[in-house]
């Protein structure tokens, strides 16, 4: 079959497609020509595939969680038991999440193939991961066309114009998320989008759902601050708000992810399982993950020390288990292309990523979630961090020359 696809063959133009499928099924018979005669077994396919596997706990939990909240909306009761009717919830979740995943991969891979054919190379593996990350950062109720549009934007503007896998400046999945966040803010935040079906129901049947909040933990934190605590006196106000908040969102529920939120982000547990796989295999940088958590925690502590409103008083550890913090730390910040590449740089990069994430989350009222903005910002800053690390190395060498 191969002769048809090589240069001069009948389907020469389709060679990238053929090569992609062929190299997926069979490691090609390429042999070393120059330099070392043997090569390590590792390649980008295995590396990227490992990340996809690491995302599976998040995906499965996300599907179940989406199903759970859809059922809660359908029954009009926020407090239905979490671990009941699991099969039905999973199926409900699947009908929502699967189309989002299919659209993300479908649109992204098509664009990658087109660029591959224009440039005459087979599919590079980067999108295998991005295609899974994008759905997991979406709210459950996101329209599919938005997923497609965001994916297209992220792949073309975020990656292909820079030259493809390995050349991008900012994280692809977060580019997609940011695109939707700024282009369609009403579909990406507020209290109607996180549970599938809620928005529709609220519009048509508002009376039934009186007192039913569809907000995320972070969204609720904002509202606890503004209204629920107003009955209390000034002095106890913020304490009460935190109290109310932690009644609503127990630490265990938040850690396990039994709360509303983007499809894949809610479960810190699932993220840590994935993170463990990434760290064991060496694909994800432990330096970045740990320093990211440390940065967030230290910022949380600093804010606790200031205190004064529920945001500031929320115990620091809470910040690490609600919202997309863990997901960002494990899967987004560790993207090796957009993170710092030097060992010291990774620690600085991770620390400020976590630090800024909590800063934006707490101090900027317009953005209930700061993780993706913080990571995007640090993506842009990463080359500067690396520049100083490299410069330090150069200076060491120059100093040696002068003293010699």
């Amino acid at each position, binding site marked *: 079959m191969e002769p048809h696809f090589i240069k001069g063959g009948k389907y020469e133009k389709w060679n990238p497609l053929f090569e992609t499928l062929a190299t997926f*099924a*069979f490691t090609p018979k390429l042999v070393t020509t*120059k*330099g*070392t005669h043997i090569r390590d077994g*590792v*390649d980008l396919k295995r590396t990227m595939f490992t990340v996809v596997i690491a995302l599976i706990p998040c995906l499965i939990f996300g599907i179940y969680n989406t199903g759970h909240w859809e059922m809660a909306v359908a029954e009009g009761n926020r407090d239905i038991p979490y671990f009941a009717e699991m099969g039905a919830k999973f199926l409900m979740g699947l009908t929502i999440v699967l189309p989002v995943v299919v659209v993300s991969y479908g649109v992204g891979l098509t664009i990658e193939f087109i660029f591959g054919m224009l440039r005459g190379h087979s599919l590079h593996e980067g999108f295998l991961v991005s295609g899974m990350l994008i759905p997991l950062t979406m709210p459950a109720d996101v329209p599919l066309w938005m997923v497609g549009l965001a994916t297209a934007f992220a792949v073309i503007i975020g990656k292909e114009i820079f030259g493809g896998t390995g050349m991008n400046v900012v994280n692809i999945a977060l580019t997609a998320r940011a695109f939707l966040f700024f282009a369609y803010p009403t579909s990406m935040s507020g209290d109607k989008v996180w549970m599938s079906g809620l928005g529709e129901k609220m519009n048509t049947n508002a009376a039934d759902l009186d007192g039913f909040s569809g907000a995320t933990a972070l969204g609720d934190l904002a509202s606890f601050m503004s209204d629920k605590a107003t009955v209390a006196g000034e002095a106890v106000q913020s304490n009460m708000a935190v109290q109310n908040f932690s009644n609503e969102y127990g630490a265990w529920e938040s850690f396990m992810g039994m709360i509303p939120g983007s499809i894949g982000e809610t479960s810190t547990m699932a993220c840590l399982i994935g993170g463990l796989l990434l760290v064991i295999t060496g694909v994800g940088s432990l330096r970045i993950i740990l320093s990211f958590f440390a940065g967030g925690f230290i910022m949380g502590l600093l804010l606790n020390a200031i205190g004064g409103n529920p945001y500031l008083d929320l115990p620091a550890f809470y910040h690490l288990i609600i919202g997309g913090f863990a997901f960002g730390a494990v899967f987004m910040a560790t993207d090796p292309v957009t993170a710092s590449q030097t060992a010291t740089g990774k620690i600085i990069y991770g620390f400020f990523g976590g630090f800024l994430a909590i800063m934006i989350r707490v101090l900027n009222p317009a953005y209930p979630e700061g993780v993706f903005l913080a990571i995007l910002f640090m993506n842009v800053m990463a080359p500067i961090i690396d520049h100083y690390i490299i410069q330090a190395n150069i200076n060491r060498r120059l100093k040696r020359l002068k003293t*010699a």
Partner: protein
Amino acid sequence: MSNTISIRKGLNIRLVGEATKEIKEVPVSGTVGVSPIDFHGLTPKMVVKEGETVLVGDVLFFDKKKEQIKFVSPVSGKVKEIVRGEKRRIMNVLIEADGKQDAKKFTVKNVNDYSAEEMKSLLLESGFWSSMKQRPLDIVADPENKAKGLYVSSFDSAPLAPDYEFVLNDEMEAVQKGFDALSIIMDGKVHLSSKPSSSFTKIKGVTHHSFDGLHPAGNIGTQIHHIDPINKGEFVWSINIQEVAAIGKFLASGCVDASRKIALTGSEVESPAYLNVTRGTVMGSLVKDFVTGENVRYISGNVLTGDRKGLTEYLGHHHNQISVIPEGDEYKFFLTSGWLGHGFDKFSNSRLFPTFLLPKSKKFRLDTNTNGEERAFVVSGELERVFPFDILPVQLTKAAITNDIDGMENLGIYEVAPEDFALCEYVCTTKINIQEKIRQGLDLIASECM
């Protein structure tokens, strides 16, 4: 004795086919080749013509740019052919050996009676200088430069590398004599790096250093970097320990002896052992009794830095080892032995493969498959784990790829040779030929900055 420097950033690739400690004699016969290609950047000028008779130690050609540097015949016989390639570049000088090994007689005196200049010109004349390498650039040393040090490593840590302690066991006197001679020509120190408790630590008149740990602990580049790194404008020389012994023998007898003990290794060799051979012997005659499999790769040198050779080609000048490994030119189904396989058959520095779980005694039969296609740099921190230099390997490689001279100078190109990057090239997910890129960078530096 200074403290032992332990190399932790590195990798011992555990291959099947280590040579057993017995030496088999391979008599000189047939055609031998001396290839100017083995000396990077050399433009040879022929001295002999086809059909001329030569003795062992007779000059075949010299360096057109540095006429003092002579290249001599390893055998006695008749010049059979001067093989030319594109643009009439001399690829190889073939000599039909007569098997007698009649050697040209040099007049030698007691080592201590030589002045530095006399010793230098004797080594140049007898062809030993051609084995002397210089950094920066990793080329034949320029005898006119002042070197700040001469570095010799008494062990090789590359996969399946020969054990010089075994090879030179009964030639310690010659080694000592060789070092005595080399000390004469050096203004700077002569540094000898050995493993702890090596018998080479008894050598006198040199500065001893002790190294152990992972490969590339035995590489001269690693040792120089940890002893006294090279700065811009400085030169250091290095020479293989077997050459030091050969210089010692030469000063005793006055005759060039081009026989070397090499290790015949690799998974495809039936009974790996040491061979006593003559430089430039045709590969086929060396391996014919030991290799039966077809579709194997013959490598003059080790699997990381050696040259691929056909059976009718010749043992490289700088090589003390032959490796024979299977070719990997076949498709591998992704679930069984391909990219998504269990991976117990692969040796990987990455924990994506179970290599790190396997016992250290497990050895591997690796083939020449690249195990993937070339990609851009995506994974970070990978090269740094096997690169024991205070140099940023990815950044330096990128500077070399982009012909960024300033970048290369700043990032330490003067300290490195392509072989220092061999492990980086092995572990790198991108499958980029890093050694080739570094060599191109060095060539650019040679033409622009030296």
